[in-house]
């Protein structure tokens, strides 16, 4: 059901990410997403970055719709439906890994578990949520591709170091699919369970249209979070996605 909500406050998270906060009493679990509609423009999927009675989405501006969302002000209205999908199923000692705006999907899990955390970004001013994260967990590691802050390299390299030192039962992550692909490889080698949140082009969001499938799995229904057992079987994961017409394209 489309629910009109009013933007209560806005927080700039980084050079290209803002969070929009709104009151909405729907029940949501960490890792779930909503379809966000800007009337007259478009409807796009967004992870919930806060899941209490006050909720938020955190948007990276990459195209027309996300740029428009960046221009919205307090008191403006958007419409949301959801929450949809299956989120994270935390179990044991968890290491969270968030790459870029993928951190948005990880925030509710971080707040509810206080788990150890790796945040990756391309450069310092694209790091998101860092100071808020420190409120919820003691162990936060940072990586930047250009080395402007923290570990110089990508989040998966940093994860390998962290995993060598600590002991964890699972890794939970969201970020660019290449990162997730290598992260999954690394976990498989270690025999470590991982749960990864994927993205695909979404139209219906409710498991009908099939536009978001990876192999036969619907990212909006069976996902967006998939576990190791499922990921191992996915031939398209890390390799192919589908365009709007349903054609397979290389990632």
């Amino acid at each position: 059901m489309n629910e009109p909500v009013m933007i209560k406050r806005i927080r700039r998270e980084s050079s290209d990410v803002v969070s929009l906060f709104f009151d909405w009493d729907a029940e949501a679990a960490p890792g779930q997403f909503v379809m966000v509609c800007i009337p007259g423009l478009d409807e796009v999927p967004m992870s919930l970055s806060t899941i209490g009675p006050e909720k938020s989405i955190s948007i990276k501006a990459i195209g027309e719709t996300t740029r428009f969302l960046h221009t919205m002000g307090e008191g403006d209205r958007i419409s949301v439906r959801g929450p949809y999908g299956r989120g994270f199923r935390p179990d044991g000692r968890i290491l969270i890994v968030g790459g870029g705006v993928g951190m948005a999907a990880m925030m509710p899990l971080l707040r509810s578990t206080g788990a150890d955390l790796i945040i990756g970004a391309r450069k310092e001013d694209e790091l998101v949520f860092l100071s808020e994260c420190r409120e919820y967990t003691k162990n936060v590691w940072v990586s930047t591709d250009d080395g402007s802050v923290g570990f110089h390299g990508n989040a998966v390299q940093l994860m390998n170091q962290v995993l060598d030192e600590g002991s964890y039962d699972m890794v939970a992550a969201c970020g660019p699919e290449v990162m997730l692909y290598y992260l999954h490889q690394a976990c498989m080698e270690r025999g470590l369970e991982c749960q990864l949140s994927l993205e695909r082009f979404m139209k219906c969001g409710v498991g009908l249209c099939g536009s978001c499938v990876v192999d036969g799995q619907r990212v909006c229904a069976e996902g967006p979070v998939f576990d190791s057992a499922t990921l191992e079987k996915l031939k398209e994961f890390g390799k192919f996605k589908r365009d709007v017409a349903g054609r397979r394209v290389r990632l």
Partner: protein
Amino acid sequence: MTSLKVNVSGLRLKNPSMVASGIMDETGDSMIKMMESGAGAVVTKSIGLEPKDGHGNPTLVELDYGYINAMGLPNPGIDAFGEEMEVAVRAGVTVIGSIFASCEGDFSLLAGRMEDMGAAAVELNLSCPHASGYGMEMGIDPVVVKAIVASVKDSVRVPVFAKLTPNTHRLMDIGNSVQEAGGDAVVAINTLKAMAISPESARPILRNRFGGLSGPAVKPVGVRAVFDLYSVLDIPIIGVGGITSWRDAVEYIMAGASAFQVGSAIGHKGVQVFGEICDGMLAFMRDYGYSSIHDMTGVAHE
């Protein structure tokens, strides 16, 4: 022995349930998954000659009792779809190729391609209510329908099904046209032309403004349509519209359907809906002494 097996104009299925066109049937792997979930056959998303993006988002409105969609027939085009068909057919999926076109010639061409790719039957989409120049715009004219079905029948050997729109008072005439042209079965119903408006934004929610209503809300209309068609046709009828439980499926069969399709329920009930419907129907048939779907077809007319 109670059995769910059916034979719809020569198409033999392990059970009478099919995945309705447009729901989780655009890729080879999706079709495999649906077949593994217990469907007797899978109808593909409606495929056209050229790739088509369909309408922009929002393409779906979720309601308490159904959905309104305006996908706008997105599809990769018949050429690219070959790859998906190959995956599905190789895995043993019984695929019914749904096609749409704007003239007889293209319908025949597409049907031929589907047959070549291994489709066990073709379904002509004469009923999509929200794509201009296609679907329902042609499907309300008995003469046009007759010409299209006849042309496709000349081009393929597999059974030809025609999917009809309920958005007309001429449903029975259209059904007759299909039968007269040699069509092997009719499929009823496609979605009802519908709209939702957002008070706050003072505009239709869907990008395309209009869309098609599906799900539980349309079941009573679909059952009526099948009942009406059964009273005038000799060819089999495949029922679709709002089927969510075995009771719904039995309503359609008793109204006159030889098989049925499930679409929206895959969204709100999940893919296990096929197993649930078939199990429930089998138990009902045992309790009430129906030994086959055929025995149960049309009994509400007696």
